[in-house]
């Protein structure tokens, strides 16, 4: 439950963003970050970006999430 998902900010209006993680787009808010910009990679948890991350870390976490998804077998988790 405490796994945040790396995603790229593709739209941003105020603190309302649309982010892209592994081709999935969803809404997230950037209230908890300073200076979030379009193009930034961020960790998203429960609909909020909680920190910025770097490309390499994001890629590793995406790989991990793909593996864990097959473990968790449900799409209804907060952790994606």
């Amino acid at each position, binding site marked *: 439950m405490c796994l945040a998902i790396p995603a790229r900010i593709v739209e941003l209006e105020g603190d309302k963003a649309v982010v892209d993680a592994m081709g999935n787009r969803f809404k997230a808010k950037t209230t*908890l970050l300073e200076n979030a910009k379009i193009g930034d990679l961020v960790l998203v948890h429960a*609909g909020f970006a909680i920190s910025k991350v770097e490309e390499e870390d994001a890629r590793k976490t995406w790989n991990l999430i793909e593996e864990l998804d097959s473990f968790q077998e449900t799409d209804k*988790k907060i952790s994606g």
Partner: protein
Amino acid sequence: MLERICKANKLMDKACQTLGRDINVMEVCGTHTVSIFRSGIRSTLPKHLKLLSGPGCPVCVTDQGYIDLAIELAQRDDCILATYGDMIRVPGSDGSLETKNKNNVKVVLSAEDAIDLAKENPGKTVVFIAVGFETTTPATAVVVKEAAQAGLENFCVLCAHKLVLPAMEVLLSEKNDKIDAFLCPGHVSVIIGSKAYEPIAAKYRKPCVVAGFEPMQIIEGLAEICRQICEGQAEVNSIYDVAVTPQGNTIAQRIISDCFEVTDGWWRGIGKIPQSTLKLKSQYSKFDAYERFGLTEKPAEDKTGCRCGEVLCGLIEPFDCAMFGNKCTPQTPIGPCMVSSEGACAAWYKYGRKRKTS
């Protein structure tokens, strides 16, 4: 990468030799537990390096009494319960949110969705089931503030947000001298910062190492723990610098402390932990489901014989529970550690059963 793994393994071997007994490292977070199983890390570790699964799965530590209250609210025609999907199968004293009044229960992926639900259903009160550790808490705090600003009357929060540090401390202070070090959660630490573990490392002389969730991070985190053990150190170190800073996310910390105060709370299987749970501050009491519906959380007595409490304190392994794998399976879960995919029992069931007999 191979070189890094070899280096890590050497450190681990050396620590085991130095100590001359088993080294018990607790991975606090359920996501670490799953990643460890999934990647097969356990089988690569020296025999004397043991990993214990900790209390860091929010679903596993949410008290039955809390689930009972949520189920009670779900029976009301004037309420909609908005919950993260992880919670719906967790058994209360009698059934779960999934088996009781499913129609009043809506699964949300973000706290914001709960606010939207309230706006779309002005005739009902939307109760947000607010569980989780520090990673999840800021989202709840933000939406409570939003609801207050918008004057949203039909929204409230049944709060059981928990703090990781007091639980770690209880594990060390209670008749449990098994734990030698902690592998600290990656994304909780994004919020609280790695410095937050310093009092624990200093007071109990236990290395606390923050690591991300991918296998190499975990292996190097364990190696750093072993290095400290070899050198007789007990420090906080983060090998997850890309996301975790010493101070953490201070904006999130501020929003949390604006909205919540710390209070004693019940943890399933562990009991009452002082100053371990969050409660809405009085200026937000309008949004506090306990206040609105006059509820008090009573700890529920677990009559099933489930031993999750001992599992998540690292006192027993899941297969030490007589019900593991026979009466209790992911399809017929008896306790929360088997319901949650991040629970130690579910992870052992799925990946560890072979090891148990070997």
